[in-house]
């Protein structure tokens, strides 16, 4: 028996008419035509449900920034400035590394929201302290805000999941420095993102330092140095870190209770970074500098896989 004409099957699938007796008989016995008709019917149903999908709303502005920051943290996107066709790439002042730094910091600022719920700082205050422009870009298409800068959008950054999912211990550890984190949230913009291998500003005095040594099963040739500068930044130099599938994160740890907080990420196996610290961080308590291997697993907590550690003395 001859198969049903494809145009006829489409006709039936769209409900233009019912199958006549002969067609029903064929469909009963021919799996090929039956499957084709079932597939066409399903697609017709999907097609009817596509209305409105051509006019979906744009993702919020901060989503792209978060994507960029996370990818840059992996050291996987060396020149995204070129790729970013949104306005911040046009003014020439924004650098991928700076964006990453901003993200890490705004993540810290986001903690203040959590801390606020336990009675220290109101998250709204953080936004109010920021330069105008907080929260720009939500729901707008990239390219429509010539003045928009990723470093000046604390409102949207506070909404990021990165900050929201900070574990309870981090909240505890950070409550004391929450206010400080707010204070520097705006200054991250000046983090030396424009320099691939930032060096401490000349003659910056070192207030404390720590040689970093391989920790646990890390190969012995991995090493580094951490220096706290008078301007409140942590200058970190690492060398020969083992290759990891994710990225490296820098932590300050209180060895007495193992409370800790993240202070930044490293991109390369051998790297230099200048990481801003909360101005009133208690380095007597948070005296251990730790570099961990982290995966892109959406888990903001320390992976438990420490590569380097050292204790600050000064």
């Amino acid at each position: 028996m001859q198969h049903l004409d494809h145009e006829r099957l489409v006709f039936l699938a769209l409900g233009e008419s019912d199958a006549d007796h002969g067609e029903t008989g064929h469909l009963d016995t021919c799996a090929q035509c039956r499957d084709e008709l079932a597939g066409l019917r399903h697609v017709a149903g999907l097609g009817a449900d596509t209305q409105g999908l051509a006019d979906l709303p744009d993702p919020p502005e901060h989503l792209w920034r978060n994507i960029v920051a996370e990818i840059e943290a992996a050291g996987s996107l060396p020149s995204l400035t070129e790729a970013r066709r949104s306005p911040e790439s046009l003014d020439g002042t924004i650098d991928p590394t700076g964006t990453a730094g901003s993200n890490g910091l705004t993540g810290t600022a986001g903690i203040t929201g959590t801390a606020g719920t336990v009675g220290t700082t109101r998250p709204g205050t953080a936004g109010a302290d920021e330069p105008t422009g907080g929260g720009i870009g939500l729901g707008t298409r990239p390219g429509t805000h010539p003045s928009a800068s990723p470093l000046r959008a604390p409102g949207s950054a506070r909404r990021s999941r990165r900050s929201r999912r900070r574990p309870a211990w981090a909240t505890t550890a950070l409550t004391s420095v929450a206010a400080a984190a707010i204070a520097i949230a705006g200054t991250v913009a000046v983090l030396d993102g424009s320099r691939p291998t930032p060096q401490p500003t000349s003659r910056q005095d070192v207030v404390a330092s720590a040689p970093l040594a391989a920790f646990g099963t890390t190969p012995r040739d991995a090493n580094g140095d951490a220096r706290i500068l008078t301007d409140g930044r942590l200058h970190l130099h690492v060398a020969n870190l083992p290759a990891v599938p994710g990225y490296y994160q820098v932590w300050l740890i209180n060895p007495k209770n193992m409370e800790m907080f993240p202070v930044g990420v490293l991109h390369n196996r051998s790297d230099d970074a200048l990481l801003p610290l909360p101005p009133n961080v208690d380095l007597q308590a948070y005296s251990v500098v730790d570099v961990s291997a982290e995966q892109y697993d959406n888990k903001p907590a320390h992976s438990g896989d420490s590569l380097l550690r050292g204790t600050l003395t000064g």
Partner: protein
Amino acid sequence: MTAVRQEPDPPPTDDDLAQRFRAGDETALREAYDRYGRAVLHLATSTLVNRSDAEDVTQATFVAAWLGRDTFDPDKGSLIGWLLGIGRRKVIDRIRASARETRVVETVRQLPEPVSTGPDPDAVVDRLVVADELARLPEDQRRMLELAFYDDLTHQQISAVTGVPLGTVKSHIRRGMASLKRRWEVDGAAPGPRAAGLSGAR
């Protein structure tokens, strides 16, 4: 998806973008996001209760896609199909995770009521894939299928509305339907060919 419609007609082909994406061209990441970010976010927002979960999944999808771009095989499907496949896995993971959390909470509260489930992620992916293909069809085919799908017009009525001869209407609709079905078979969420390509990017 919207991007497709908003770009100059006809929509740009995916081929070049897919190749550049796979090759690690950073501009391709931004283009892919401009073109398909809405679709991925829609998949997440329509299947997850929590808006920030949805944004998180969208972010994770593009990050995973970029870091796992080596595993993307343009011969096995479109870029949007691949992205939606990654997004679908992440949505399902998130739904499972919150179901676990809910169970814990319910155990504590002793509230046995099950969580209401949102739309099936597979169905959302299928719709997005079909919508994308619809937007890529030649103008005549698309217009007539939209009249059939959205306005529920018969071929005869479409012919009357558009002034296009009935035979031509039928032919456009048949070819358009064949394209949609082919695309759905390649890029849809039904278990099958694309599963292999996904593992690497998760």
